[in-house]
């Protein structure tokens, strides 16, 4: 069998498997709420001071005790979180949209969309982090 034939076959199989998973309804999404945010903070031995969950509850950010921030994003039916000093993140605000960037390649920039303006504490955090 030629290499290209094997690779093309593998790619076709990948598409078939993904289609099968979708057809079988494996599209469930994790629930992201304040309890989950508190759980992530507690795992680090920290408390949540302020928290904001983005539109659609796909991502969230929280200010924790100890000058740290927590971000959480929905990963399918799981969640992924990062805790970092506020100074180690870059927070950008544009209207009702907030973008939080990390040095970690395994956790791409987090975008949060709010119905109205982002909470004031987040704007303060953005100004503080930018300094």
């Amino acid at each position: 069998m030629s290499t290209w034939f094997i690779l093309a076959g593998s790619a076709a199989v990948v598409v078939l498997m993904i289609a099968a998973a979708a057809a079988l309804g494996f599209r469930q999404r994790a629930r992201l709420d304040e309890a989950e945010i508190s759980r992530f903070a507690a795992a680090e031995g920290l408390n949540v001071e302020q928290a904001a969950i983005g539109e659609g509850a796909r991502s969230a950010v929280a200010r924790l005790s100890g000058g740290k921030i927590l971000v959480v994003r929905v990963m399918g039916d799981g969640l992924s979180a990062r805790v970092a000093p506020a100074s180690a993140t870059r927070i950008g605000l544009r209207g009702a949209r907030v973008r939080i960037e990390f040095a970690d390649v395994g956790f791409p920039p987090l975008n949060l969309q709010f119905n109205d303006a982002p909470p004031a504490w987040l704007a303060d955090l953005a100004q503080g982090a930018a300094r």
Partner: protein
Amino acid sequence: MREPIAPPFDIPDIITYAVPGFVVLILIEMIYVRLARKGRYQVADSAASLSMGLGNQIAGLLFGGMVIASYFFVSHFRLFDLGWTWPVMLACFFAEDCAYYWFHRIAHERRWWWASHVIHHSSQHYNLTTALRQTWTGAISFSFIFWLPLVFVGFPPEMVLMFQAISLVYQFWIHTEAIDRMGPLEWVMNTPSHHRVHHAINPKYLDANYAGVLIIWDRMFGTFVPEDKSEPLRYGIITQLGTFNPFRVAFHEWAGIARDLGGAKSLREVLGYLFGPPGWSPDGSRKTSASIKAAWAAQNPSAVPAE
């Protein structure tokens, strides 16, 4: 220099021939999970795992020749002429499995090799597609060096490669939550139960059950931990990935190493970031498996796992 002893029969492309079996078993497992509600699938996660598998295949085409060339090169300097006899093949099976154990253990204990192997652990799920979530950088991080001693002793290169392929195919089916414990097989073989422990991130399960085909190596070298049905397993890595992007999955730890090396202030720090345990930092501020296990053991003195 002596030419390697050629096999007396044509060795089939074991992995390629196993692929149809992989496909059928994944479909069966998906249907079983849907009907029995035992185990978990998620389409984005499976897509990432399968994409990593496809990328691994491409990486194999690009760099696999380097591995094979290394085996044949070392074979020229072999100590003994171990031919293609049944006793030698039996010995090679055990030797390959032992080499796999040590490769796998070091791939968890040293960041250079963990940077490749972390990919396989980066799913928060444990199903047959997780088995196919394989590294793209195994060959170029010299993972194959752990098998070179076998060739140096005198096992023919093709024989070692054959048992590596058999081991890889064996390890596919143990990535499932659909199969419970398997009775007496649990004593000798690596089973779904044993390998679930290996993929779990509960502190008591960290750095355990490195076996390929036979669990005996973990029992011999003190890394065996049995599955505790009273504690639900959590899968993935300590700092779960926040992406399904295959390229970020493939290279995130390498990028982390590069970032750390950029800030290293001494040769000790360079070596620590490269070959220290994953999570090593000069001031010890980051978490390693050892520190996580120690903290857990301090809080749960009566729950330290024992066989």
